[in-house]
């Protein structure tokens, strides 16, 4: 099973992401944003960072990158699992592979802090990550306020696409727990085989660094892929 990590010019969490995947025993293929051939891969991560310096809008310039074409194709044709983290989330919304948009944080400044999250909806993409589970992960972003045009929120929940929400340290879904002004405290969404979140699971791989909850999230994603390819081949 091969997992690709795509580096766009300006990506800066790609190395951390590769290190996290290696720690979980995954075999990693690194892709450069100009690659037009994905190769034999079973899943893709678009890592965090400042692709193209976040100029214009976070993720907008990277969404036009050559690698996005085969990626889009693979999502459409064979439901390739894609995971966007932070800037990767922005790229996926700009590329219209996920609904909505990421707007500058409500407070107008970059925000780096630890956040508690709740799994709002279990998904087969994350095998074993159950509804109602809590995670503690760091966030670090300037444009992380998830936005949906009026009227689209209810259907996002109805379709089971509302995946992760920011909650308070004791698990409450409160306005105060919302770090950036995201609609409905949304921190992560899923559409088909594409999932994305603003927090950084790859930075939470070791309790000594504050949390090992990233291990749970990434393991669940890898396990989802493993089961999927097993089912496909059986």
């Amino acid at each position, binding site marked *: 099973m091969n997992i690709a990590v795509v580096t766009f*010019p*300006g990506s*800066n*969490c790609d*190395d*951390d992401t590769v*290190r*996290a995947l290696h720690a979980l025993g995954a075999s990693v293929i690194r892709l*450069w944003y100009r690659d037009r051939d994905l190769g034999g891969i079973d899943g893709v991560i678009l890592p965090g*960072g*400042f692709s*193209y*310096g*976040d*100029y214009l809008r976070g993720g907008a310039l990277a969404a036009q990158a050559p690698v996005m074409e085969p990626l889009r194709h693979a999502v459409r044709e064979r439901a390739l699992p894609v995971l966007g983290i932070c800037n990767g989330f922005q790229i996926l919304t700009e590329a219209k592979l996920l609904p909505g948009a990421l707007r500058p944080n409500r407070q107008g*400044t*970059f*925000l*780096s*802090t630890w956040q508690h999250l709740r799994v709002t909806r279990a998904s087969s993409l994350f095998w074993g990550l159950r509804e109602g589970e809590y995670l503690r992960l*760091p966030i*670090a972003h*300037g444009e992380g306020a998830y936005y949906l045009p009026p009227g689209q929120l209810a259907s996002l929940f109805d379709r089971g696409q509302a995946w992760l929400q920011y909650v308070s340290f004791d698990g409450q879904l409160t306005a105060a727990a919302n770090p950036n002004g995201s609609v409905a405290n949304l921190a992560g969404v899923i559409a088909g085989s594409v999932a994305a979140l603003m927090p*950084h699971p*790859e*930075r939470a*791989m*070791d309790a*000594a*660094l*504050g949390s090992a909850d990233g291990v749970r999230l990434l393991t669940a994603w890898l396990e989802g892929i493993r089961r999927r390819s097993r089912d496909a081949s059986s």
Partner: protein
Amino acid sequence: MQARDVGLTQTEYAAICRLMGREPNELELGLFGALWSEHCSYKNSRALLKRLPHEGPYVVAGPGGNAGVVRVSDDWEVAFKIESHNHPSYVEPVQGAATGVGGILRDIIAMGAQPIAVADLLRFGTDSQSVRLRQGVVKGIGQYGNAIGIPTVTGDVAYSETYAQNPLVNVLAVGLRRPEHAMTANTARPGHLLVLVGQRTGRDGIHGASLLASQDFQGSEHDTLRPTVQVGDPFLGKLLMDMTLTAVERGWVAALQDLGAAGLTSAVAELCDSSGVGANLWLDRVPLRQRQLSSYDIMLSETQERMLMAVEPERWPDVRALADHYEILATVIGEVTEGEMIQIWWDSTVQGTVSAHWLVRGCPRRDVSEEWWRALRHRPTEAPPVITTIPSLRALVLDVLAHPDVRDRSFIYQQYDSTIQTRTVWGPDHDVAVLRLHDTRVGLVLSVFGTGQWASLDPYAGAAAAVVLAASRLAALGAEPLGLTDGINAGNPDKEESFRQMASAVAGVQDAAEALRIPVTGGNVSLHNETDGQPIWPTVMIGALGRLDDATKPVPDCVGAQGHTLYLVNPGPLHWGGSVAERVVEGASPYPLGDLGHHQRALEAMTQFVRRGLAQAVRAIGRGGLATALARMLLGAPPSLGMAILLSESTESEKLLRLFNEGPAQWVVAVAPEVVDDAVGYWQAVGIELRYLGEVTQSGRLEVDERVHWTRAELLTAWRQPG
């Protein structure tokens, strides 16, 4: 164009003519103007800096290169250095601070090291204009560091009217390298190609070194300084960093130098001078952003995001292909030659010829006599000020916690990515940063601290105390000190008083570093911090780097369990000179430095105490004194815990002085009941005073002398003042 147009005096001009045996042409004069500026030549500070101790068991490279380097393990070396960007940040806060970060990162990269951390040391005024300056500076630091992907893990900020027209923006960077990837500028050899990599050269920051960084500000001069604004591009900076470090790793770079102050001129001159070679420069080949740049502009432009490499001709195709991969420009702009002369060409005509040696070393430098240097140690007396009206203890604790120099800084550091690169064990919510190296338990401790009030009346004592404080925070973790970097910020050195203040500060760093046996491996000097004739307080920023054998479990800096006993180690003098409390009650008296030899023994003893595992929690006492240290140890603890403190002082004013003095090398330690005897015995044996303070309780509040108390909420509200 005349000497003074490029910031040179008549005497300096005469020296140039003597060296050259002729008058320089305009281009040559411009090169001298830049490299003989205060910022590049250290003409007023070199003689002082050379007195700092540079030798130590871990030192790989001391001052002289782009950054100091120390050894952490057999596998890893660490480059680190501090840099200032004060004037640019006043002119354009966001870009000034951003390019400050970019600049120090390229210094680290020039040593062949991958940057892993940034720290920011800031000083601002107290008016509303200063608030906007601070917001811009913080935004700029975040903008660059966050985007290029280097965590900002610690910092220091303080305020005083003295910085209103002259904020200080010092940035420190730390990088890691394998010993086999060590790079320097002094390994260029005749026949190497000179390759300029990165941004196209534009009209940015011409005269940045000679005018912006090396002269005082007159309020109205802003206009004439217009062309000096540089814009940072962290996006390109990231590509340049990755490309450069990859080329270094593959062994394709023979010598490396960043382009900082005085741009190409400084880079080429430093590279040639340190390597003992000359160069031909072909300016017509330099990629430009604008048409119509003159040779002069190209040589002096401070366009950011550029590096200069010396490359063997056979390696050039590889380097070019790598640059193509990263989509950045790499251009051969010259060649290394025998001798020491730099010849500047445009097509086939020579525009100027100067010796690298004259540019880098020829500047007449100020020297001082031994006697004058020694006399800097005669200082104001340390007689304690008399407290005439005794303030309320209850109110004073809260006022000190709420003071801008003490209060919670999360409104600043939450704008910085502090967790990227996955090494951050302790980030900016602690007094020091702890970074664990990948795939090992070994880690680094970065402790930064700068003077403000401490050095206002006595720069010597303040500077020395800053070194002691930075080191006492390493000791609190039992870390092994590896080295120091120092940033000296002071006024116009042509004024005798400012010069003496700067020299006193350097003397303070020297004496403390020697006493503590920690080498200074590099630093920065920023002079001319004056606006309209008003100098800042001489301000010394210190960065101390230490090693931890196990960085995964640092000794906590907050109390952890009921029943632990609290002690004060090495109680300071009953003297609150330079303290925040003194400022709150509007006093000003010199800082009580005490004996550096004694502090060294206390530091050594604390380091061993922690390593023996005798402490359940430790916090070094700094700004805000003992009271603040206690409050912070409680605020980070489980909410049910409290503290009951019993002071042994008898009078009210002595109690205040005990709680608020900021004397150096003091710690609060929490000791578990089962090791109390061992702990007490240990301190008795080493001959450092251990004074009983009280107990950790379950009261959820801080109590002093069973008389005054503060709830946790009260302390938190005071400490968490907004911006």
